[in-house]
């Protein structure tokens, strides 16, 4: 009954006209930010932060949070329509979403992305509401050793990102690993591969790389081919998913939501990582994995659910402990502190209206987003009719703005352009950028976790097996590898028997 009263209290705060208005404004801006390639929630929250100082604390958090989870709805739009991710977290949606668009199923892909995001977002808020403290406590048990084991497991899944040649995928992953090492090594202070550019101390930057490989690279390759776009125009088809799509997507959405939520609680770019992991998991458990990369709707539903659930999960360490795990939540923490609100265990005691007001506004926000995004599908789909000659300069413009908006750095624009050419070359030679990005994100943390673990254990390698969580994860990884080898051996034997 106590939590019921809290919910009522929360809704009484969230349903005031002012908070409703700012909630709508936040999710609307978030959707736009998500759609526009390059510009992300972190940049726009930073931009709008000063304007929220004059608002009451709850309202400020409501609008800023709305931008955060709203951007995960819009990110898939350009991924599906033009193979360019609106958000780094929507890279994986390009793989199958764009193929669906080429087959005339753009409306269904967009619809499923929106609905999956809604289900996952709402489920995520619900889990946040009922399970925040125990989940936060569980997340604390993840130290460097556990991260090493977890990332090891995730990297094994990398093999499932490959839709054609496995060797090429691993080559890309190796390149991603090398690129990820650029910058100052936190453990030894050694500066790697910056070639004198101080701007590269913290690495090349995920946004320029993703926007370059997928945004600029895609534009370049399309300009080269006289692209037959009539296919799209003729077969827009249904604007919403049909029964079969639902049957196929139901389980991926549930799996993606749970996966995304728990990965989002952990430190790091939870939305991106969870979307990749969800994609590889769906491909692994699917009855027809060869469909992936050719327009399997599970490849859209799962990852889109995952990245939305991850944003809900990211609120847990922020609200329960006052610990931010992503750039955007760090900004939200700043907003809370400027308003004199202390996140953490005292939040529920001292400012229950803030906590419950924000949580209930997230329910409202997700509903708003569903009703905002579904009708927009008809408009987005018309975008496909715009001649590419007009479209691509706009795309490039937004990529440039997005690359600059991150850190006000002209060098990052150059990085993006460089990776644009790299992306073009990759596509010409049949390599896929996705494993590169996955490795780029994970490998630096993997290395750092390994070395931190050894520092903590004073050089004792058995720390990975002495600690329960990491031991379990390594065993799971071992089982996984063995079962994959086993099943591929079985398949070979079967083929030999037949042939």
């Amino acid at each position: 009954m106590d939590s019921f009263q809290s919910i009522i209290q929360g809704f009484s705060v969230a349903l005031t006209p002012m908070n409703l208005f700012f909630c709508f404004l936040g999710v609307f801006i978030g959707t736009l930010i998500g759609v526009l390639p390059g510009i992300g929630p972190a940049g726009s929250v930073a931009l709008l932060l000063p304007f929220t100082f004059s608002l009451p604390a709850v309202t400020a958090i409501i609008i800023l949070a709305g931008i955060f989870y709203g951007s995960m709805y819009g990110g898939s739009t350009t991924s599906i329509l033009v193979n360019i991710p609106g958000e780094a977290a929507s890279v994986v949606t390009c793989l199958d979403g764009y193929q669906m668009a080429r087959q005339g199923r753009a409306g269904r892909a967009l619809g499923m992305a929106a609905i999956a995001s809604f289900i996952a977002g709402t489920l995520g808020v619900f889990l946040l509401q009922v399970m925040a403290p125990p989940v936060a406590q569980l997340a604390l048990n993840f130290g460097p050793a556990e991260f090493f084991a977890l990332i090891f497991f995730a990297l094994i899944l990398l093999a499932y990102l490959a839709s054609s040649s496995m060797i090429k995928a691993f080559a890309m992953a190796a390149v991603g690993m090398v690129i990820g090492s650029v910058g100052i090594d936190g453990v030894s202070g050694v500066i790697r591969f910056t070639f004198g550019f101080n701007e590269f101390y913290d690495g090349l930057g995920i946004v320029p790389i993703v926007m370059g490989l997928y945004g600029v690279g895609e534009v370049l390759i399309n300009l080269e081919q006289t692209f037959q776009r009539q296919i799209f125009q003729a077969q827009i088809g249904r604007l919403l998913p049909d029964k079969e799509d639902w049957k196929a997507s139901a389980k991926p959405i549930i799996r993606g939501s749970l996966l995304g939520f728990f990965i989002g609680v952990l430190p790091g770019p939870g939305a991106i990582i969870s979307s990749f992991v969800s994609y590889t998991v769906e491909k692994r458990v699917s009855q027809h994995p060869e469909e992936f990369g050719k327009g399997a709707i599970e490849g859209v539903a799962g990852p889109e659910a995952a990245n939305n659930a991850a944003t809900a999960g990211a609120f847990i360490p922020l609200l329960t402990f006052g610990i931010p795990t992503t750039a955007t939540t760090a900004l939200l923490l700043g907003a809370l502190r400027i308003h004199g609100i202390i996140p953490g265990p005292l939040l529920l005691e001292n400012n229950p209206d803030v906590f419950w007001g924000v949580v209930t506004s997230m329910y409202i926000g997700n509903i708003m987003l569903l009703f905002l995004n579904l009708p927009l599908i008809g408009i987005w789909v018309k975008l496909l009719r715009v001649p590419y000659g007009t479209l691509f300069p706009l795309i490039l413009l937004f990529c440039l703005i997005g690359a600059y908006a991150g850190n006000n750095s002209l060098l990052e624009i150059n990085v993006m352009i460089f990776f644009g050419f790299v992306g073009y070359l990759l596509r010409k030679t049949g390599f896929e950028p996705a494993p590169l990005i996955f490795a780029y994100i994970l490998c630096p943390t993997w290395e750092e976790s390994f070395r931190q673990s050894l520092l903590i254990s004073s050089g004792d390698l058995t720390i990975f097996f002495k600690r329960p969580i990491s031991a379990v994860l390594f065993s799971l990884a071992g089982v996984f590898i063995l079962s994959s080898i086993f099943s591929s051996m079985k398949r070979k034997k079967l083929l030999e028997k037949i042939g």
Partner: protein
Amino acid sequence: MKKNPKLFGGIILMAALGLVTFAGGLAFAQETFPTKPLTFIVSWSAGGGQDLVARALQRHLAKALGQPVVIINKPGGGASIGFSEIANSAPDGYTFGQLSPSVHSLKYMVRAGIDYVKFEPIMFGGYSPTCILVKKEASWNTLKEFLDYAKANPGKVRMGNSGHGGGWHIQAIEMERAAGVKFIHIPYKGIAPSYPALLGGHIEAIITSIADTFHLIQGGKLKAVGVASSERNKFVPEAQTFKELGMDIDFVTFYSWVGPKGIPKERVTILYRAFQKAIENKEFKDYCESSGVIISTKGPDEVAKFLAQEDKKWEKLITSAGIKPE
């Protein structure tokens, strides 16, 4: 006129251009600085401790100057990117930025040409001492207990810091020397990733500032077992100082404002007065009070002396810490 539309258009264009230049002339006629918006460079990501102090000040500063003040975040390189940006901007008083002790550590640790002499000091606003934080439930309640434990158990106390060779890491090494103990230094990318590790029991302590972690101290998750200032800090009165225990340790994170070297003296004075007024504002004072920042002001000349002293201190620190610069 209808007969010759091009001429008509041309005349309008000339008139418009003339008006524009005339307007520019009008601005120059007004001598009082500032006459256009000012740029405030913050060398850290938005939302962090240093950034929030700047943002808390922004509005009041703009009011005091009568012009908008735009904050530009230029993070990276441990603050060296932003610092270089400030030092290289035009010394006309329209661009200034925030400085922290990193200006000294960067000079000796990193080849980025960061040097305090490249800046024109405007004002010193406040500080927050370095502290050692442990979990609230940890068994040590005083600095003496903590250091005694560390002495009796060399290599057992794992101390998280914000990065190898960073300001706090170097200070931790100095603390080891002064106290005769040995920590294991666990570096993180910035201090924030160390909070879950500390809370989860993977490390025993972290070295950071009160202001950076004040919300965690207030929230009851962490406690400061010792502070590195010369007197006890009013925000954590129970925490002992190193000086009390006989060690000459005095480290603070400070917030001060500078421009590129060469700003005309009158403009520096105008900026200084504006900062002074902004700091007096109740809202800013309340923010500092709620975030562990102690307000303590110094004027331009005092700041120059202070920076010179600090520079010598850091030079000694880094050479004795034995960490090679890159």
